[in-house]
């Protein structure tokens, strides 16, 4: 690939959303919405076009030469060139450099492509909102940050993108700042993100401090390509590598995953995601379904050379992923807020991706990310149409009968649900079966984790079709639901495009027993992510396929039996297993646990400090300092005569005093 072309194109990809942010931010409150309605989505679509050109240029190249690093500018370079009798030294160098390779291009395509569709949708969704320009400013800066995160080639700029993403997410969740619940949700998300950030920073610092090169010398580098090149087998951290990986590389893996867990809403840092549904629905689609929450998956996939050296850390990742997938699936079955159900489904699906990258099926995890971005954005946007039509009612108990009034949205939502549940020909089927097949072949504690993953299927199809049934079928149960009408074309069009994508993208990677393999997707990512260490045998693969499919269908049949025909009482679980129902309905009590374990002690401590330490100790000490400074100032005030000559005299006097002291010291 031509480096200059790539440099210019990546500058456009990063620069357009930034420019859009500037335009929206400057015009907020000054200019009418019409300008931003064009620039807001326009810059993202422009960035998408530039990304497509990069993608096409990349496909022209043989697979081995599809990675390229371009340097925007040299920043903070302490290297010393040889000359003046000094030998050249390699110093610390944090370039602003961009890595273009199949993995980052895939992320860029999803971010700008799906993001662009969501921007178009937002023009319709937010049309009446007085904060229209502000909304697009936040959305554009979010896209910039996310692109910086996935394109950066240095840890420094990765961390900057990582933190900017957290800020943009905070601003968008708390977008309707008149609502107290929105502000609280934004704060919760931000605080959780910062906990994860600390993990990422510490992990990055440990890599920086401890990574050794081929000759055992400390590298002290933040260049990610150099890091990956040196993390291979062999003692490149100072404590060596045992069969379970050294302590250092395991610690790095766990710390990096702490950052990934906060971004991807994995246990124990998952509680912010359902609350984040307080933000506008396009935000949920963009940030909390398609892009930001998958940053954790990207991080683990990008740092897979480290996880390959740290089986303990990778196993932990897989366990947490599958555990979160199960837990979120159970919670999703009892929620009534349409967006929260989808949020828990996101958490569950990302749990599966995290499981995949944890067991080493990186390409399968990224494929699930890709299809998930399509159908989850679709579900959120379709839900947004419903919410819009019902004047901001989000409770599915207040809906019903919408399939007659909103036909296109109903079809789109059903397509998304089929894809999510993993029904053949829809995207989710292919990605999920590949993912679970890899889990069967690679997973730790085979096949138990994989079985759990298959069980998640039944939960998935149950909770999503429960929403379809309650919200769209039956009779309207509220005033608003009776008068609901289809969304305007501007909001319908992106939904239909996504519905088309959710139907077809699965065929990019048909790779399991008994089918002619079409592995365009994994072949594309192979230069970066390699191939999995093992693949399932045909028989086992076919069994996995069948089991997964049957359980998905079983979930739908269950919904039909409970909500459609009434063959099984809805009160069965609440009556006979009340603890399970409560556990699910109360979201496993994590919010309460954190409240008791973390929030209340902190608040009590703060109260003690406020009541005792602040007035007595701090005010006392500061008051004393203040009084003595005031007394000193009174002494000095006589110098302030206002006459130039007096100032000049003192100035000259002390200059001479300084000179005399200097002279005495030198002689």
């Amino acid at each position, binding site marked *: 690939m031509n480096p200059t072309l790539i440099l210019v194109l990546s500058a456009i990809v990063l620069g357009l959303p930034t420019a859009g942010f500037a335009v929206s931010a400057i015009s907020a409150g000054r200019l009418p919405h019409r300008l931003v309605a064009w620039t807001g989505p326009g810059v993202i679509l422009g960035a998408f076009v530039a990304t497509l050109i990069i993608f096409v240029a990349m496909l022209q190249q043989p697979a081995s030469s599809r990675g390229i690093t371009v340097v925007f500018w040299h920043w903070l370079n302490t290297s010393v060139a040889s000359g003046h009798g000094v030998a050249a030294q390699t110093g610390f160098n944090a370039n602003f450099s961009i890595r273009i390779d199949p993995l980052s291009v895939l992320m860029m395509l999803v971010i700008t492509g799906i993001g662009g569709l969501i921007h178009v949708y937002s023009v319709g969704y937010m049309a009446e909102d007085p904060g229209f320009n502000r909304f697009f400013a936040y959305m554009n800066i979010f896209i910039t940050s996310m692109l910086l995160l996935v394109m950066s080639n240095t840890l420094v700029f990765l961390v900057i993108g990582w933190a900017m993403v957290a800020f943009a997410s905070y601003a968008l969740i708390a977008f309707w700042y008149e609502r107290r619940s929105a502000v609280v949700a934004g704060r919760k998300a931000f605080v959780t993100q910062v906990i994860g950030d600390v993990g990422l920073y510490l992990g990055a610092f440990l890599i920086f401090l401890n990574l050794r090169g081929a000759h055992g010398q400390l590298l002290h580098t933040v260049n990610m390509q150099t890091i990956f090149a040196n993390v291979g087998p062999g003692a490149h951290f100072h404590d060596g590598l045992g069969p379970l990986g050294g302590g250092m590389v395991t610690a790095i893996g766990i710390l990096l995953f702490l950052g990934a867990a906060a971004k991807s809403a994995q246990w124990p840092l998952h509680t912010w995601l359902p609350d984040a549904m307080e933000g506008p629905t396009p935000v949920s689609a963009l940030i909390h379904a398609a892009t930001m929450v998958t940053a954790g998956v990207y991080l683990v996939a990008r740092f897979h050379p480290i996880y390959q050296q740290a089986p303990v850390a990778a196993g932990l990742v897989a366990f947490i992923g599958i555990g979160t997938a199960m837990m979120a699936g159970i919670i999703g079955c009892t929620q009534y807020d349409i967006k929260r159900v989808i949020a828990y489904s996101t958490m569950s699906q990302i749990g599966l991706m995290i499981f995949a990258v944890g067991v080493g099926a990186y390409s399968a995890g990224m494929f699930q990310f890709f299809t998930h971005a399509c159908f989850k954005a679709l579900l959120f946007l379709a839900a947004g149409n419903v919410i819009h039509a019902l004047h901001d009612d989000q409770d599915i108990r207040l809906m019903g009968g919408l399939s007659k009034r909103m036909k296109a949205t109903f079809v789109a939502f059903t397509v998304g649900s089929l894809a999510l549940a993993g029904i053949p020909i829809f995207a989710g089927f292919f990605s999920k079966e590949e993912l679970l097949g890899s889990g069967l072949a690679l997973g730790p504690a085979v096949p138990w984790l994989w079985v759990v993953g298959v069980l998640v299927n039944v939960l998935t199809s149950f909770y999503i079709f429960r929403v379809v049934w309650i919200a769209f079928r039956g009779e309207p149960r509220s005033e608003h639901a009776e008068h609901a009408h289809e969304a305007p074309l501007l909001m319908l069009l992106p939904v239909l495009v996504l519905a088309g994508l959710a139907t077809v993208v699965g065929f990019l990677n048909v790779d399991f027993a008994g089918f002619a393999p079409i592995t365009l997707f994994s072949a594309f990512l192979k230069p970066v992510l390699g191939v999995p260490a093992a693949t399932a045998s045909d028989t086992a693969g076919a069994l996995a396929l069948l089991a997964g499919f049957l359980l998905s269908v079983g979930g739908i049949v269950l919904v039909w039996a409970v909500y459609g025909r009434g063959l099984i009482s809805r009160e069965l679980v609440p009556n006979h297993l009340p603890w399970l129902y409560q556990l699910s309905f109360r979201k496993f009590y994590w919010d309460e646990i954190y409240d008791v374990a973390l929030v209340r002690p902190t608040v009590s401590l703060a109260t003690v400090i406020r009541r005792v330490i602040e007035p007595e100790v701090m005010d006392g000490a500061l008051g004393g300092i203040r009084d003595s400074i005031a007394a000193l100032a009174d002494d000095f005030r006589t110098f302030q005569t206002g006459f130039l*000559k007096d100032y000049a*005299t003192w100035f*000259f*006097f002390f200059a*001479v005093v300084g*000179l*005399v002291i200097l*002279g005495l010291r*030198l*002689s």
Partner: protein
Amino acid sequence: MTVIFGIAAVLAFGGALGVVLSQRTLYSALSLVLNMVSLAVLFLLLDAQFVAAVQIIVYAGAVMVLFVFIIALLSPGAEERVRPLELRMLFGGVLAAVFTVVIGRLALNGITVTNNGHFHGALGPFSPSLVDAHGQVQTLGEQLFTTYLLPFEVTSLLLLVAAVGAVYLSKHRRVSS
């Protein structure tokens, strides 16, 4: 060379004293001209021909013309002397003497120069003979536009600001009065 230095030094110092001691502002200005021309001679002695020329053109030319013009415009009267001798004058005189003595001592006692007459540390590459061979103005110009480009550009910005400031100040006053 020593003779020329002696004459020029005496004239320069005399000019300096004249600036401070003259009662009439115009005499101060004329003494300053004398001081600056003598300084230009000293610069020539120091192989800094270009700076000497600039000194004459900018200082003795432009700046002093401006001074004289303003003096003529405002025509400030003679300052009345303060008698008895002001305390500040005594204080300033003492400070000035101490300052000169300390500098002179530092210059002579081997701090910047060793006792056998050589400078501490290595000499730079611009020996007078080399500079003459290459051309004084060429060398200075090269330095100014390569090594010292940033200070040079900043100075140009400063000049612009000064011009804008002067225009603003004079215009502003006229409006308010």
